[in-house]
């Protein structure tokens, strides 16, 4: 769906990136200044790179060798920027309709209402842009991009300019966007939790203008060196599980992890639906014997697959649980004390509360 191989230079910053992605939602991850936005602008045609090739949704839009450069307005890209960038001289309705004016297949009234409903912006239609909150503006920007009838969506940290409360307001809409539209999406973020929630299948990590990693999100998460110092604490595993049932009595949801039970604070998905759970390595405790009289609700039995020393005092332990992998980070002292070895059966203990807000609908068929 997406094939990029470009080189570009802006002042002292040089970008040289190459990656392919077949996932419907591709996460573009990296610290600020890594070149994520530049890559996105190149995809949208707002920057013409010095050299390379860009293929979006199966269509070649740039190829320096063949002298192809499709201008931005013919690329059919729905671009949602960090700031909403709405047209202040138009009201909300006309902002939303702006793209339809130029689209070849104009979205009909039904589609318009559908997008307006999805984003809950019906009451704002007659309003001027100036009086709206940041969250409302960003929702309108998303609607405006959708209604230009794009072949692909580029979301450039659409939540970055919002404060925490506004972020929580907009996040569900962005989430719905990736579930309800069938468009390929590139989602840019420097926040791991956002990325895991919205692009939990394929991730491209960018660092200093180069691609540091391109592949499955689950594997990416197991490599703290790629996450950067501030997010390495979140390194761990992604478990692919199903919702077994919701337990009304105490507000927990029971998930099925290869036959074993995993209890997490209630998730919104219906029983039977596929869910991804992010388990941080530092939240996993190990025990040789099945522990008794312990408050933690989750004890998964599995087998140690590998032990890797990490720094002076820590060991990363990879554990096979059914067909899934779990990662635990324990001290070297504990590992020696328990005489951990590859092939050994082991019990992984995880507090349910450590998994709060860490279970999400699985996107794009993980």
């Amino acid at each position, binding site marked *: 769906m997406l094939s990029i191989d470009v080189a570009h230079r802006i002042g002292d910053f040089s970008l040289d990136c190459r990656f392919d992605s077949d996932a419907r939602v591709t996460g573009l991850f990296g610290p600020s200044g890594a070149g994520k936005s530049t890559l996105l602008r190149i995809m949208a045609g707002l920057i013409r790179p010095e050299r390379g090739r860009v293929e979006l949704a199966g269509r070649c839009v740039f190829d320096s060798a063949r002298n192809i450069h499709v*201008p931005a*307005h013919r690329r059919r890209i729905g671009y949602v920027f960090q700031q909403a960038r709405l*047209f202040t*001289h138009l009201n909300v309705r006309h902002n939303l309709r702006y*793209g339809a004016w*130029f689209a070849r297949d104009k979205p009909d009234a039904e589609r318009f209402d559908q997008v307006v409903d999805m984003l809950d912006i019906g009451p704002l239609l007659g309003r001027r842009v100036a009086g709206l909150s940041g969250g409302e503006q960003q929702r309108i920007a998303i609607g405006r*991009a959708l209604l*230009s009838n794009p072949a692909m969506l580029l979301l450039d940290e659409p939540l970055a300019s919002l404060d925490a409360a506004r972020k929580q307001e907009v996040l569900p809409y962005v989430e719905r966007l990736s579930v309800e539209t069938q468009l390929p999406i590139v989602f840019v973020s420097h926040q791991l939790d956002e990325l895991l929630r919205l692009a939990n299948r394929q991730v491209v990590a960018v660092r200093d203008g180069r691609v540091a990693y391109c592949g499955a999100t689950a594997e990416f998460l197991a490599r703290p060196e790629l996450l950067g110092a501030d997010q390495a604490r979140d390194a761990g595993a992604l478990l692919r599980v199903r919702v077994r049932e919701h337990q009304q009595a105490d507000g927990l949801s029971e998930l099925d992890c290869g036959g074993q039970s995993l209890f997490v604070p209630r998730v919104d998905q219906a029983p039977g639906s596929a869910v991804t759970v992010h388990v941080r390595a530092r939240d996993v405790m190990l025990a040789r014997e099945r522990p008794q009289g312990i408050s933690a609700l989750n004890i998964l039995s599995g087998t140690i697959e590998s032990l890797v020393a990490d720094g002076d005092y820590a060991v990363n332990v990879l554990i096979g649980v059914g067909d899934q992998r779990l990662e635990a980070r324990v001290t070297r002292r504990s590992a020696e004390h328990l005489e951990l070895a590859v092939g050994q059966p082991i019990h992984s203990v995880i507090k349910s509360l450590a998994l709060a807000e860490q279970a999400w609908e699985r996107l794009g068929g993980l």
Partner: protein
Amino acid sequence: MLNPAQAEVLSLSLWVASTAVLFSLLPALAAAWFLARSRWRGKMLVDALVHLPLVLPPVVTGYLLLVGLGRNSLVGGWLADTFGLVFAFQWTGAALAGAIMGFPLLVRPIRLSLEAIDTRVEAAAATLGASPAWVALTVTVPLVLPGLIAGMVLAFARALGEFGATITFASNIPGETRTLPIAIYTFIQVPGGENQALQLILISIAVSLSALLVSELIARRVKRLQAPL
């Protein structure tokens, strides 16, 4: 209220000034666009050229026009032969002189509004499918409108009051090039004409004030329609 002679002077002045502003509108937009957006280093030269009428003595501008566009000059002769367009000693000459003198005043506010526009909004319009021409028409020009109106009023007032370049280039021909300031000057030169001059002066003040008022009203209207963030 007005006697026929005053009415003639007033309507000629309004006509000449309006023509001057209308015809300089597109070139001024182009010049402002170039000055605001171009990264060419020779830009300063163009900037200086645009502002020249503001600093040159108007008589010099008028004389240069006469030399450059007179019937016997190269360009003037060509214009007259090809398009039948004659400037010297015609009302068209008065309009041209007014346009040139008002040009810097028209360009400046447009340029300032252009520079205030967030070009990222224009980029957003491009990603929504608008070609550069459509972006200019549907985003840039509407956002520049307040500056455009301010510039038009300034240029109109300047063209209305234009004297030096006009009298040098187009002379003082009743009904053809005798605009308000030239008529006032003429009456002051004639013994006993002070009364007539005073009446024209009052008319002149009334016209200028109403132009300012109208522009203020339009500007408020536009501001209400597009309150910036």
